Every structure is written in C-alpha cells, then in structure tokens.
C-alpha cells in the first residue's frame, strides 16, 4: 500500500523539490533522509517507505543507505543533540574529560538520551574545527573551546528553556529537527547571523596585517 497518505501535500511537494535537484532521482536519498529526520526526528518506517516509493527502489536499499551514515538515527535523539569531539586532538586537549563529565552530569551514557527526551549525547569524530579544540557540537552547530564547566552550563541553559548561543552560528540554537531541515537543503533564513570567522580563523590574517 502507498505511503503517500502518511504525509501532507506540502511535505510531498517538498520531497519532490529535493528530487528535482538531481539529474537522477536516486541521488536524493541522502537529503530525503535528512528531510525525514526534520519531520520525525529520526529515520522512521514511514520515512523509509515514502523514500522507497518516491525513488522507486526497495525499502531494503533505503535502509542499507541510512544505516551506513552516522547522522541518520534509527531511534529518536534529544531535541538538543550534543556531540563531543573525542577524536585524538580534541580528546587530548580535553574532549575526553568533557565527555565523561557531561555523561556524569546528565546521568546517561554515550548514545543515550535523558528521560524527558530533551538532550542526547554522542561522541563524534573530528569536526573540522581542531583549531578551536576542545570542540562540542549541539545539533551540528559549533561550540568552540569548551571545558567541562562550560558544557554543564550549556545543559543548564537548555533545561531552563534558554538554549546556549553557538560560538560560530545563528543567534538562537535551532532544534535537532530544524537543523535536519537545513541539512535537507531548505533555507532557514539564518545564514547572515553570527560571526563570519572566529578568532583562530583570523590568527594568520591578523599577523599578516601587522597586528601583533
């Protein structure tokens, strides 16, 4: 039976607009998986059904792709998904200590979420921000130069309903679902917010310009 009835007309149209970006429909599988996460928070069975139907491939093929990539979740994550970089450089600069401290503070382990579903925790690989180590990502926004203390404060802010502001990102931290929509390629109008570059990005330029 068709999965079409499980989605609104607007949602189906948006999926079609994703497919139209590519010369071949199958290329749309990744943005469509991000799109499903923007609706459902994770890769749901209705999501797999509709993608298979839209792309005219087997559901097993959609599952094979979704399970290959770590950003696609087979279970719901928190509204705020914290990824602590524990690749070598960040780990050594403090990422391991931050990870343990945060897990302890939240009372959960890696890859779990809090009972109220607000926060989940993951340890992530190098996030291309090593000059800001230790790095923490929340919903894939950059939080640079973190300490155990600063991340615990972030958690308090989330629990107080005042999510922290990313170091290099929009003024208001989007939710997991909102940012999944951005990853699916939809404009959220926030590109102009936040700094163009952080201090480390400018380190060489400053010297070249004669600043000490």
């Amino acid at each position, binding site marked *: 039976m068709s999965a079409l009835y499980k989605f609104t007309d607007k949602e189906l149209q948006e999926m079609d607009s994703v497919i139209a970006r590519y010369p071949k429909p199958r290329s749309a*599988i*990744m943005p469509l998986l*991000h799109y499903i996460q923007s609706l459902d928070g994770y890769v749901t069975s209705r999501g797999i059904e509709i993608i298979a139907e839209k792309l005219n491939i087997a559901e097993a093929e959609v599952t094979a792709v979704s399970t290959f990539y770590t950003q696609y979740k087979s279970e719901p994550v928190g509204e705020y998904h914290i990824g602590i970089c524990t690749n070598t450089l960040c780990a050594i600069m403090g990422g391991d200590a931050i990870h343990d401290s945060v897990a302890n503070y939240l009372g959960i382990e890696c890859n779990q979420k809090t009972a109220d579903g607000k926060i989940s925790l993951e340890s992530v690989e190098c996030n*291309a921000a090593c000059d800001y180590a230790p790095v923490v990502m929340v919903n894939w926004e950059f939080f640079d130069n973190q300490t155990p203390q600063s991340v615990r404060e972030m958690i308090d802010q989330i629990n107080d309903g005042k999510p922290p502001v990313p170091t290099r990102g929009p003024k208001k931290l989007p939710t997991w679902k909102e940012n999944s929509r951005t*990853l699916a*390629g939809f404009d959220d109008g926030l590109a102009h917010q936040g700094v163009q570059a*952080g201090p480390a990005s400018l*380190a*060489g330029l400053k010297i070249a310009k004669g600043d000490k």
Partner: protein
Amino acid sequence: MATKLTPVLSANWDEKDSFTLEGYQRHDGYKGLKKALAKEPDEIINLIKESGLRGRGGAGFPTGNKWGFIPQNDGKEHYLVVNADESEPGTCKDMPLLMANPHVLIEGIIIASYAIRANHAFIYVRGEVAHVIRRLQKAIAESYEAGYLGKNILGKGFNLELTLHCGAGAYICGEETALLDSLEGYRGQPRLRPPFPAIAGLYAKPTVVNNVESIASVPAIVNKGVEWFSKLGTEKSKGFTLYSLSGHVNKPGQYEAALGITLRELLEMAGGVRTGHQLKFWTPGGSSTPMFTSDHLDVPLDYEGVSAAGSMLGTKALQIFDETTCVVRATLRWVEFYKHESCGKCTPCREGTWWLKQMLHDLEDGKGTPEDLEKMLDLCDNIAGRSFCALADGAVAPILSSMKYFREEYIQHQKLGKCPFDPIESTLFADQIKSNLVGA
C-alpha cells in the same frame, strides 16, 4: 615582523560581511570569472596547468592535468564535484573558508566547469556543519540571482547548475570514488579504478573531483595571472595555501602562506608551543600522514620537502602535541577512528583495523608484550598497500611512525603495567582542574 604569510583566500575574513556577494565583490569577487569567460575553455585548462596548482585535498595531483583528462567533444555530460567532506582528523581549513568566503569557491566552480565543459556541478559538504551549509546555500542563491549561475551566464552562452549535497557522517565519503557512490545515492564505498572518474565518474560520465581549496584557488590565478601565482611557493609546489595549526600551540588557527614555510616559522608566528612545554610530535597533514618530531622543525612544508623527510604534506593540518601527551594514546585514538570509519569492503582493512585497535588498547593499558610490538608491525605490513583504498594506509601511518620515533614509550607502558601519563596534564584546562575550578 616580516612574514611569509600571503592571505589570498583568507584576505577578507576579518570583514563582517565577507560571506556575502557584496562583501566578496569588494575584493575582486567574480573578476576572475569575467576574464575566464572571455577565453576558450582549453586556454583555462592550460593556464591552470602552467600555474603549477596542485590538489589541496591530500595527494597533491596537478589540477590542470586532472582537468585535461576529461575527454572533450565526446557528446557526454561532464560533471564537476567539489569535495567538501573535510573529515581527515586535524584538517580544518575548508570549513572556515566556506563559512567566511563561500563565494570564492562558487567562482572557482564556475570557471572550472566552464573549462571542463560541465553544465552541472556539485558540492559534497560534510553534514555536521549546519552553519557552513547555510552560508553555502545562501551564497549559491545569491550567485544565481546575480546571473553567475543558471542559464547564459554573463551573456556568454554558458549554462551551469550548482547543487549542494550534504553528507551524513562518513569519513570514507571523502575518498573520491566513495564520494561519487554516495552522491549517486548508495552506501559510500570506494570503486575499483580504472576506470578513473575522468572517464567514468558521476553517473558513469566524465567527472572531475577536486578539493574545496584547490577550486577556490582558481579565481585568483585567473585574475592575477600565472606568473603572480607561480612566483609564490617552491620549485614544484607553487602558490599559497592554508596551513592549519591546532593543539598545544599558543595561537592555533589558519595561517595562509606560500608553500614551503617551515613549522619553526609557523610556530614563531603562532606564539610557540604551549607556554612552559616542549614540542613532542606533530602531523604535517592530518592523521594519515606519518608523524614528525622536533627534529623536523625545519622541513620545508611543500610536497617534496615533506615526502623527502618521510611523510606527506597531506592537508597541511599541523596538529601539535607537547610532552604531556601519550603518543600511544594518540595513536590508539587515531586507529579507533580508522576502525570506526572503515567501510568494510575489503578484508585487510575491515579485520586489520579491528585487531590493531585491540592490540593498541592492551599496549596503552600496559598489558602488551614485546612480541606484541612485532606482531603489530607485521600486521601493519599486511594491511598497508594490500587494501582497496588509502584509508587503510592512513590507519597504519600513526602506528609505524610512532613506533619509529617513540618505541621506548611503548616499552615503558609494558614495564610499568600502565600508561605513564596523566591525561589531565594534556588538557587545556589542566590548571583549572587541579584547582577544581572546572571539576571533572
């Protein structure tokens, strides 16, 4: 201070609106494109060949030659795919570039596509960087609106569509053929070569895959000329590039300089190794490039210089570690990364990285034996060069190089029966932790 710094890609990053079309146009933005479209496509390919530009994604392959491999007038669609997957540990240049100056990449894409006769280009950007993705989306939209993308660009009859594609967390998708499979909607696993992407790439059509920084370097070359570009750098490593310093250094960050600068020179600008500490080991170009020590401070950081010293320039990701860092721990963590990211396609890598991780765990815990060290080297020998793609070679690089320079430290772990290092000492907040300010 007289410096060898040459900000080109990063020249406007200190201006608030550097990422907008307006901000970019204040700095010669899209001037190179106008010059390029006045030339024949082949002239552009020759110009890039003459410039000596080499790929900035790791391997250093000459960019103009790569473009020249695309069969011309074959009646097929051609594609340009920009590799913005940036996931090699330590590598952190493309993301700040795209956040601060996405238009320089887009201009480069239009010129490169024109040269190789592609009418559809793609940017494959890693998925874990929401704000970078937004900046790219916005810049692409601005570029379409200004008539730099779309139909009949600048009235020259050239058409180009540009699609931004977000990855979803898989290091292997940075390998160019895995990237193409991923972009076609499959699991990202490397393809058998030949055929090379230039003959059968995306959708089995002739395709160029280039790194962000390679393509972003093109507009300046076209605008300022080959002579200007090839005056920078060294004999076989021309031009400017982004060096990224991270780790135990006082002023980590991006340092755009002519190729051939040394770590000693860079460290001097970056305020030296963390105050009160000494350099222990460093990577010249990400974790896949064999590590160096303080004996290598004067190695010219160009393609030839670094390889003559036994490593690779790679992505110019200079990760600096001081004497508080356990080299066995660092190596273990890198190997855990490669094990986690192995795509599973071939046995030596899939099984080998699993075993290497177990052995290194034991060695780090002080439970290894002297025979384990030999066994580990033997295992490395059976993995490197015997696997399907270069991920596996990257996995053994930290092991072989750390064993070469720090064998004693491995043995020390065994003698002590544990790791001799306190992991807190290497953290940036070691002092605060000790005085219980940030409490662990």
